[in-house]
């Protein structure tokens, strides 16, 4: 009776012209990751993939910005350089500093709506956030092409989904190629996932509860993160629903108190 190896070899040989190595499992590449700085999330995920797009999605007050600042803080502490492309000019430097971000190593690009030169031009110009969105995508492109940025955070946090969904998939595909070549991590803050298959990791964030001390002081907010998609995860079929990571962030005055 032929051995299993011999049978496998015979089948692979027969199918070689159509499916090379049909029965041999493809080698798994080890994806390089960077720590987020939040223990609960790192324990669950391992980290944010390097050279790939990661999306942090969720509604307002779901902890996306806190998580992104924590990632930037980890990179700047290791003397790397990050960039924050801010579509709505919502970045708060004081929050970033209290989260441990070295602001001198963070390039902040603040998009804005340019004033129309004339009435005719104003009529032709696209309304709403398109100008800012266009600037943000172009800026991200430039930063990825420049290379050397460990993390680029594209903050589309306040862009409504109907606008965000209209970003062409070709743009995300180009970003994916560029991040892979530049070995940068592109972290996108969204209300929902726009990059789709180009994203290596999609984390859904949500607010869990407010932490109150003494009934009068907001001493923290507990957030939940749930992994929606992870391309480089080991292919193990789980019979259970994966648990959510729950973590708590304290307000800024707590950081000042620690100092």
């Amino acid at each position, binding site marked *: 009776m032929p051995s299993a190896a011999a049978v496998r070899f015979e089948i692979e040989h027969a199918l070689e012209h159509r499916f090379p190595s049909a029965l041999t499992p493809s080698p798994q590449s080890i994806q390089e990751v960077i720590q987020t700085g939040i223990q609960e999330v790192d324990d669950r995920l391992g980290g944010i993939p390097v050279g790939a797009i990661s999306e942090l999605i969720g509604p307002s*007050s779901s902890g996306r910005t806190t998580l992104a600042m924590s990632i930037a803080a980890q990179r700047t502490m290791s003397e790397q350089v990050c960039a924050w492309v801010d579509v709505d000019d919502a970045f708060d430097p004081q929050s*970033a500093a209290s*989260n441990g971000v070295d602001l*001198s190593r963070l390039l902040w*690009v603040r998009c804005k709506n340019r004033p129309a030169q004339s009435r005719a031009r104003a009529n032709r110009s696209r309304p709403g956030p398109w100008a800012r969105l266009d*600037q943000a995508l172009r800026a991200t492109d430039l930063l990825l092409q420049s290379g050397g940025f460990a993390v680029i955070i594209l903050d589309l946090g306040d862009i409504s989904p109907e606008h965000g969904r209209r970003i062409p998939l070709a743009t995300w595909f180009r970003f994916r190629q560029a991040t892979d070549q530049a070995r940068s991590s592109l972290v996108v803050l969204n209300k929902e996932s726009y990059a789709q298959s180009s994203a290596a990791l999609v984390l859904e964030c949500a607010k869990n509860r407010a932490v109150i001390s003494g009934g009068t002081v907001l001493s923290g907010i507990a957030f939940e993160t749930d992994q929606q998609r992870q391309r480089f995860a080991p292919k193990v079929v789980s019979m259970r629903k994966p648990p959510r990571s729950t973590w708590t962030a304290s307000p800024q005055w707590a950081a000042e108190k620690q100092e």
Partner: protein
Amino acid sequence: MIPTLYACVHAAEFPAQALLRLRTDLRLQPVVVLEGKPPQEIVCSLNRLAKRRGLVCGVTRHDAEETGGIHVLARSAEVESSAASVLLEYVSRFSPRIEVASSNLSYSCVLDIAGTERLFGPSKELAERLHSSLADSGFRTSIAVSQNYHAALMKAHASRGINLIPTGEEAGALADLPVSALDLSEDHLETFVLWGIATLGELAALPEVELVMRFGSDARIWHELSRGIATHVFRPFETALRLEETYEFEDPVEQMDSLLFIGTRMIECLSHRAANHMLSISSLSIHMRLEDRSAHQLTIRPALPTTDRKFLLKLLQLELAAHPPQSAVVALTISAEPGMSRKMQLGLFAPQTPEPSRLDVTIARLKALVGEDRVGSAVLDDSHRPDSFHIESFSIDGKPFALQATSPHIALRRIRPAMPVRVVIHGSKPAAFRMEESSFQIKEAYGPWRTSGCWWSTSQWDAEEWDVLAMNASGESRACLLLRDCLRNEWRLEAYYD
């Protein structure tokens, strides 16, 4: 010991020579050059034909004009300076090491010609070529070649034509020169006249020790000079490096491409000239003279000094695109500030950072995209005022970061400018607020946090901050930072917690 050989070029009566060099019509006529304010002008320099008429330096204008047939010219420092630079340019073709030893009325320079035999042949041949080259450019010079610097200098001053002093025969060559060839004071000259010492040969014959006993330590130097054995530390003259290129257009230029076409060539020349001096360009200043008689000034300052032409041109292009001139350009001047070339030791385990020159271009492009003041790194101001910061230009300084890892703190998403809201108060706490088209019910409100400051100035602030958990009609929940401006009694939505 490294062999030395010097060639001294001496142009006597330099004020006259500088003026007559460009006035060929006066070369065969007696000419005197006057200096001083009228009517006290005196002759400071004159040509050979004027000397034959019996004129000497120091006579007044009146005396010179009385001689008859004399051309009188005024001394010009600018003409002398340009003539000196031309002379230097000619002699620098024979040696890059030149020391200038000129006086008020003559111009002298000494060339270090050691090792030039293979280029120009023996020193005699070099001296002849040098003499003929300077004669072609309109200078009458005397040249002396010697192994000793001072011997060459004194011989060139005191004689005409070409003089070669063989090695070891310096004392003999200088013996006939008058004692005045040394830089002596009137008293010392008088003493030598009383002693009957007229030439350097006679001075050299005196015993050195007795001479020093009578005149002091200076006498030792005179004795060595007269024997042709005095030493000298050669100090080569270096022209000040001025990296500047100017171009005046025949017609005013409006097209940016035409401007960049000329700019490319100018930057190429500047970077090439800087590289020739082992230097890089640390900044470029672009000065444009415009058709409406105004000027347009731009400055490009790369993160690190460079001679990369393409990189500098890209920066120029981006700067011009960001700050175009308001009217057509009549003249373009680009001046560069030289800097030392970049030296950086890269490490295998050094953290990944952007390449400085590429980062410069990227930031310039980002500024062109979003605005000059909207790209950079944020710096927190030393103030308790909410959202108090300023933007500085981004650069990677490589300083280690002092802070350690911290536990996460809730980040704010600022609303700039803050959105005015209408707030419903219930029991001294905000109960609901309305902004634009949507209204929010406040489930929990924490506060107030009172902040105030700058009461002594117009930028005073006094506010109450409320952390509120709000929900709108569609069930969307938000943690917001509401602020009540106590000075104006206004409510604003400052930020969201996220």
